[in-house]
């Protein structure tokens, strides 16, 4: 009896969660679909976004996310390797680094925005630019990326490390040829989580990359990200709601495309190297 009740309860909860997701998604698709056209994707916005398209905004978003990834990936990977391979879990350095990362991950994004504004825009003199927005996002993305990558590297069985060492391979050779490739799905997953967070970010970007909706010439120009465009249309522009829906739809589709592309590339790459998935996951 109790089993049945529990089963029904769990199912209801699951359906509830799925229903919320479907409601949001279908709302966006239904309201936004009508506005999507080639013109919408290729024209600059006019009349504060009520008319025209979002071409410069898509370009700015891509630039911002790309610069965030370019700065966070090497730092993140290096830190994760340091934490998982070169320090022990009980070591005080790695303990403190991990504590700091957990804290950083829970800091509200508006605080990151203020930090980015003070440090990148003013102190480093980057002003309101795509670069300072990307760097601020990189700081935000780092904790998540490092966490997942560290876990992924730690999940690679120690047997590989010992075997490689016993074969006279250096630590770096083992890392490059065995450990990192084996942890690649986790690294990509971490990167995807980071990109997802970066693309959805609004508060941190308002103060750093700004909301100029012109087509950016370089990363030193101010650029408006999609999330800011959505925020602006729904909050500040009367009659901009329908276009906000369209922009949200574009954002979701972009995320889905990036995600599935990354997953496909990883599996393809791993298949060529013949990595056994069951070992890691």
């Amino acid at each position: 009896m109790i089993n049945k009740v529990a089963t029904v309860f769990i199912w209801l909860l699951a359906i509830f969660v799925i229903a919320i997701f479907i409601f949001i998604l279908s709302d966006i698709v239904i309201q936004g679909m009508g506005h999507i056209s080639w013109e919408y994707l290729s024209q600059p916005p006019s009349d504060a976004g009520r008319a025209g398209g979002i071409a410069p905004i898509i370009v700015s978003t891509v630039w911002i996310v790309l610069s965030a990834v370019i700065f966070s990936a090497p730092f993140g990977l290096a830190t994760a390797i340091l934490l998982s391979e070169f320090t022990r879990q009980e070591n005080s350095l790695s303990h403190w680094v991990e504590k700091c990362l957990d804290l950083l991950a829970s800091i509200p994004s508006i605080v990151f925005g203020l930090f980015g504004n003070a440090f990148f825009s003013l102190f480093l003199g980057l002003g309101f630019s795509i670069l300072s927005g990307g760097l601020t996002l990189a700081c935000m993305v780092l904790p998540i990326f490092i966490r997942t990558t560290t876990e992924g590297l730690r999940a690679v069985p120690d047997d590989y490390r010992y075997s490689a060492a016993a074969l006279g391979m250096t630590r770096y050779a083992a890392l490059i040829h065995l450990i990192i490739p084996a942890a690649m799905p986790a690294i990509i997953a971490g990167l995807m989580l980071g990109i997802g967070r970066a693309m959805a970010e609004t508060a941190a970007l308002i103060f750093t990359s700004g909301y100029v909706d012109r087509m950016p010439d370089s990363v030193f120009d101010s650029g408006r990200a999609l999330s800011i465009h959505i925020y602006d249309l729904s909050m500040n522009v009367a009659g901009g709601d329908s276009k906000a829906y369209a922009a949200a739809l574009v954002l979701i589709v972009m995320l889905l495309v990036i995600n599935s592309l990354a997953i496909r590339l990883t599996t393809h790459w791993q298949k060529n190297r013949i990595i056994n998935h069951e070992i890691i996951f």
Partner: protein
Amino acid sequence: MKSFSKSHSRIAGVQTGQKQSSSIPYTVGPLESGPVCCIPESVFSIKHLSVHYAEKTALEDVSLDIYKGCITALIGPSGCGKTSFLSVLNRLTDMISGCRVSGQVTFNNRDLFDSELNLQHLRRQIGMVFQKPVPFPLSIRRNLELPLRELGMRQSSKLEHCIEAVLSDVGLWQEVKDRLDSPAHSLSGGQQQRLCIARALALKPEVLLMDEPCSALDPLSSGIVEDLIQKLKGRYTIVIVTHNLAQARRIANYAGFFWVNQQAGNLVEFGRCQQIFESPRHQLTAAYVNGNRG
């Protein structure tokens, strides 16, 4: 032997399972060419070796010699420090956090704990096979190539040659020659273990450390691996940890019996295999090899 054509001798090698052409580099070579077994010339000389982990003493005051070209079997119950002992010999203990090693160990009359010793070089001379087969998540070919490339062998013809030779040595060539590029994990457990042995042999080591190489295998594969170890006798110095007393008796020249004493592993008795099994000096050894204790 040299007048044999390569292909001819290879077929002969497959048929007898022992003879290998001397024209193929990296093979173990005919048995006659190996050192005469059991001239007590020590490769390792171990004196007062102790191994401590963070709070536990794994091994206390062990002294023994490992002789060139012989198989030395280490027997005893689980947790008496046999694996720790093996890991000291190729300094894999360096990688284990909180592990401290004391005592003197010489390898070919050189201090094993010398800080200037090149560890990569040392570990290439002292191969190791683990209890669980650990094929890398790569193809069969890449498994063998990777350590060789690290060694500096890049020429693909040389690599191919070496791969064929070592796979023939472990009796795997006929079984896998058509699927060298398939994943190593698709092999059976016994095949995986033989691949790991081949991978260690490819580096032309002098010593082979084997940590219960048969315990994770079914009886049939275990038999094949055991025959292989027999074949390697005399050509390599082998130190093997085993729980299978009958196996130790069949293959080993020397045997060391370990036991846990006051929560630390001790070497109770070391001697010729026959002596350990037939006329042990120590009561504990007698009880263990007769199956009364342990």
